């Protein structure tokens, strides 16, 4: 630790701390442009000049590391003149068009000029002119004249994300920020440069000219689009959400967002948003439909009893809402049938659940089944951040295709689809056979042996096994697809003394929160509900924020279940798929329209504030629950609110005991005809979620991905093409493109692609390519 004095106050900070951060700890603000803790020092802008005693010149606080006994002055005539000089230089070529700049009022150039600058300019020469209002992609415009060349944007993309898409072009005073080869930026992290830009040089196109800081409201929120639940700040104006920004939490989170989360905030206002209630295909008033549904509930209870009513909850609800739904089912309806609509079958015991801090400390990170880049983008950034800190980080991808990517290089084990759990058990059996549980798992696997696409020796499998046993801080990111993985993870945990943390990358986003609210989230629940529905035992279903056809792994079975229920009621923001299967659809309120708590993949609870009123006739779920209780003449008191936070565990859900290790069967390999493909589902944040017009240009044109060999065989060229697929349960067509990470014989398709439902054929299904005519005739 180093002791120093800043502005006559003493402070002790770790060695290597920069003066600017030490000052910050004392609450002393040193102005900065180019410095950012995540990016490290650069020393370009020179605004952070301070005086250090015994040093001949002023120094930049962001590049000067603290030294024992150092005496720093962050103000004084020399410092102030230095900063004033830098500001004057920054302004000579600045267009001074603050009145028409979206950053006005929240701009560091304005703020510091106000603080240190002089009132009048001395610059009388002609200014340099550069590009203004040029789009660098669908979401962002650049004004090169306003740029202070702090390089935050360039360094964030190139050094931090590792996707070099911005650069400095030209030299000296002609230097500008530009895109590489003048091509649009297409990184899914592009929007962060808007937050990073200290001035009005990089601005959001959707937010353009929408508001000024003094006529908008900002509320703390979290992103609802994937299980990361990034912390956000939501800007609204006159009842509309008009912007989402990252919300850094000092010492805990940098506040990065992916473009899905940053720009996908318009689902409240897209054309498809439900604003009215629908009864049997006709628009009705919300009041009438609520009354009618109340009478359905009354009749069903009278005729068939509480157990004939079921509740299906989807990912959009808050924890408080989930709690109210469960109470309503329990206390008012008298049914235990509350299930969560899910796409994957796995469950992760809370005791295994790790946090993002585990990623910060990891020496080994294993991806199981899923590339986090696709499903939980900001987790990819967290892994990359760890890799930057610790280039020795071992990353291992285990799945049906190569899950690693160049931004965080790793070792890939490419297996037959669906064999991750068996492979992991097999690997552990190689290195820990003396452990009785592992020995049992090994026996159950019988003669299973993995087939690798791309060479992998038994030696490498053993090395992997030892890494899994011996790594000091192991983090596994699991896609939740194969339920048997739970047991393998438990067994692995049992073998290790050091930290073993698992982060579930699967949705629905708030499932852990539903569990905390008392709703069992395991897949068996959902399966039991579907089965009972098909058997005609369910007479009334409340589907709340759920879309069974879209989510459930077997679309035909989902259809059969819904079709067999007398009355199906949907509460949500949008029509569910095949709305003719629903008898009533009533408009719900969602994120940013209700206050509530969401739990993320760490098991961390975070509050999101409401900023706007629900549009049209849409209402929060609790309003509907209240009126249906009223229809039953039952009392259902919503107040006082339930507080999900546990006073001992803080914002993390308290851990409970770990379950037993169950058996892991030898996987069955389906027979493959020549030229057949295995369909592999993946979660992709851009697909299957809430619709967004802003994001339209970024929705992948070719969501399906195949190997080059299969593409050439099937006549798919650049940039991609359409492929007909036939499986046992039907046919779909898919837009596919080549991805070199996919092995031959595999087609990777995201869940929930509009028009190409993977669950029509089934995850892992054997499919064959057919002509498009055949598909359209189906």
């Amino acid at each position, binding site marked *: 630790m180093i002791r120093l004095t800043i502005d006559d106050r003493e402070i002790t900070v770790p060695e290597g701390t920069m003066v600017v951060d030490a000052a910050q700890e004392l609450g002393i603000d040193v102005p900065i442009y180019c410095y950012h803790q995540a990016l490290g020092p650069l020393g370009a802008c020179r605004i952070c000049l301070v005086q250090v005693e015994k040093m001949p010149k002023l120094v930049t606080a962001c590049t000067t590391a603290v030294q024992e006994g150092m005496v720093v002055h962050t103000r004084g005539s020399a410092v102030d*003149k230095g900063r004033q000089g830098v500001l*004057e230089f*920054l302004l000579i070529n600045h267009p001074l068009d603050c009145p028409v700049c979206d950053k006005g009022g929240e701009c560091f150039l304005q703020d510091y000029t106000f603080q240190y600058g002089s009132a009048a300019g001395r*610059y009388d020469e002609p200014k340099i002119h550069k590009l203004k209002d040029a789009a660098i992609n669908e979401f962002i415009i650049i004004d090169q004249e306003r740029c202070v*060349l702090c390089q935050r944007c360039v360094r964030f993309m190139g050094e931090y994300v590792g996707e070099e898409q911005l650069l400095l072009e030209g030299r000296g*005073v002609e230097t500008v920020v530009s895109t590489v080869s003048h091509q649009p930026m297409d990184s899914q992290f592009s929007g962060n440069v808007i937050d990073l830009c200290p001035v009005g040089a990089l601005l959001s196109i959707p937010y353009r000219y929408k508001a000024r800081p003094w006529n908008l409201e900002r509320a703390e929120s979290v992103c609802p689009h994937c299980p990361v639940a990034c912390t956000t700040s939501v800007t609204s104006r006159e009842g509309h959400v008009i912007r989402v920004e990252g919300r850094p939490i000092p010492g805990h989170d940098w506040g990065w967002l992916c473009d899905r989360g940053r720009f996908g905030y318009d689902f409240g206002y897209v054309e498809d948003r439900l604003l009215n209630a629908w009864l049997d295909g006709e628009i009705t008033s919300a009041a009438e439909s609520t009354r009618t549904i109340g009478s359905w509930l009354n009749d069903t209870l009278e005729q068939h009893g509480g157990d004939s009513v079921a509740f299906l909850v989807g990912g959009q609800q808050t924890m408080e809402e989930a709690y109210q739904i469960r109470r309503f089912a329990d206390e008012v309806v008298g049914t235990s049938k509350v299930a969560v609509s899910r796409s994957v079958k796995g469950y992760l015991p809370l005791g295994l659940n790790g946090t993002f801090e585990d990623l910060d400390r990891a020496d080994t990170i294993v991806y199981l089944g899923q590339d986090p880049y696709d499903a939980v983008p900001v987790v990819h950034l967290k892994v990359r951040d760890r890799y930057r800190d610790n280039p020795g980080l071992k990353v291992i991808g285990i799945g049906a295709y190569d899950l690693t990517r160049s931004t965080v290089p790793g070792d890939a084990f490419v297996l037959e689809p669906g064999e991750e759990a068996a492979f992991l058990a097999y690997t552990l059996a190689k290195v820990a056979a003396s452990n009785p549980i592992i020995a049992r798992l090994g026996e159950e696997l019988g003669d299973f042996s993995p087939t690798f696409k791309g060479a992998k020796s038994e030696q490498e499998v053993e090395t992997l096994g030892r890494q899994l046993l011996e790594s000091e801080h192991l983090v596994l990111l699991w896609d939740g697809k194969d339920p048997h993985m739970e047991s393998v993870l438990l067994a692995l945990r049992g073998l290790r003394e050091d930290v073993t943390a698992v982060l579930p990358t699967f949705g629905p986003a708030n499932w852990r929160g539903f569990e905390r609210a008392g709703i069992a989230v395991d897949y068996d629940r959902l399966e039991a509900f579907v089965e009972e529905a098909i058997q005609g035992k369910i007479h009334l279903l409340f589907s709340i924020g759920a879309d069974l056809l879209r989510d459930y792994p077997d679309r035909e079975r989902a259809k059969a279940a819904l079709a067999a229920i007398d009355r199906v009621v949907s509460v949500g923001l949008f029509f569910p798929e095949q709305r003719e299967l629903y008898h009533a659809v009533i408009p719900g309120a969602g994120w940013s329209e209700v206050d509530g708590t969401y739990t993320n993949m760490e098991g961390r609870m975070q509050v999101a504030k409401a900023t706007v009123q629900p549009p049209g006739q849409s209402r929060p779920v609790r309003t509907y629950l209240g009126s249906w209780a009223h229809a039953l003449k039952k009392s259902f008191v919503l107040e006082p609110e339930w507080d999900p936070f546990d006073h001992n565990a803080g914002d993390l859900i308290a851990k409970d005991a770990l379950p037993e290790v169950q058996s892991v069967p030898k996987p069955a390999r389906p027979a493959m005809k020549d030229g057949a493909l295995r369909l592999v589902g993946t979660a992709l944040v851009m697909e299957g979620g809430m619709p967004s017009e802003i994001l339209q240009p970024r929705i992948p044109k070719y969501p399906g991905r195949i190997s080059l060999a299969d593409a050439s065989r099937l006549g798919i060229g650049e940039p991609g093409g359409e492929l007909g697929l036939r499986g046992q349960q039907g046919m779909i067509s898919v837009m596919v493109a080549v991805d070199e990470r996919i092995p031959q014989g595999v087609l990777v398709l995201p869940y929930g692609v509009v028009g190409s439902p993977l669950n029509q054929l089934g995850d892992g299904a054997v499919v064959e390519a057919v002509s498009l005519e055949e598909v359209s005739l189906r």
Partner: protein
Amino acid sequence: MTQTFYLLRNQAVPDIDRIEVYEANQGYQALRKALKEYEPKALVEMVKASGLRGRGGAGFPTGMKWSFLPDDGRPRYLVVNSDEAEPGTFKDRELIEKNPHLLIEGMIISSYATGAREAYIYCRGEFLFGSEQLKRAVAEAYQRGYLGENILDSGFSLDIKVYRGAGAYICGEESALLESLEGKRGNPRLKPPFPAVAGLYGMPTVVNNVETICNLPPLVENGPEWYRSMGTEKSPGLKIMSVSGHVNRPGNYEIPLATPLRALIEEYAGGVKGGRQVKAVIPGGSSVPVMTKDQLDTPLDYESILAAGSMLGSGGCIVIDDQTCMVAVSARLLKFYREESCGKCTPCREGTFWMTDVLERMEAGEGTPHDLDLIRDMADNIAGKCFCPLGDAALGVVVSAMKYFPDEFEAHVTEHTCPMGARLYDTVNH
């Protein structure tokens, strides 16, 4: 006047750029001697003992620089700085064009001494002929077994690669040079870490100037005492001075350090042209403050020139006669820095731009008395506040010219014209 030809041997031996001629004139003998008779460490000690200082500008003791390399088993690189873009300096150019084998021999000895197995020459982009000469000479050296595996059966191996820059002065600054060599934008790096610890691709790297390395063969051949027999205690040895400007015989002159400035101008360079008088001298390349005619007896060694308020720098001696307007000189040189500022830091990028405009305006007769204060204040806002030395370098001439020739600057703004009628160039930004 002692004119030696240890470095500029091409001036004495025609065609020494060809390997047979070089060999026939004791070429590569120093290399044989170094490999056979010296352990690498002993060579480093020899360089230390000689007192050789870097000829790229800063005059940093070369032996000491070499001994900063951490002994941690990582690969090391030698990078020779042949970017030479400092106005007034053209010594490295002559060395690589006319006597390339001297550099190559020096590089092999230096690499052997410092433990580098790979060496680079970063050649200024505009030096097309020079880089071709180097490439040809490197190929010849490979053919004769001076480069490649197991050089002269010594067990030492070395590869040399010639890399051409793309035309940026800042790429002469060693850390920007390394960035550029790595294929990145040529902007200076934050120091520390210094190249000796984390240089090319993060590995320990020695960066030395062409002339510095060319000193190695004669040094090995003649020994440190010989080297110390020239110059002063702190500035021993030989230096090439590039003389340009208003002299009768501009060119490169190899002199013992501490030769008086007057001797360089009058004896070597044949005196001021047209019988005119010296008005000012920029002794060490465009980045250093001017000296006046009263300082001509200053010996050309690092300490004496510093004491006289300037710097020996890279040895680019620009002689300015009494018919020349110092405002025009300042404006022209500042314009160079404006064009060459890499743009990374604010004061240099914007300050050189603004100051050039004001000086050009003054020279065009459109200045106001207020402009003089403005320039002084701008200089104060740049001085000591830039990321790399280029910002301060840009100020050297202007600030000293304003100090020594205040009347000339005053006259421009009061008389609204250039009293010298100078028109060094006529591109005034309007």
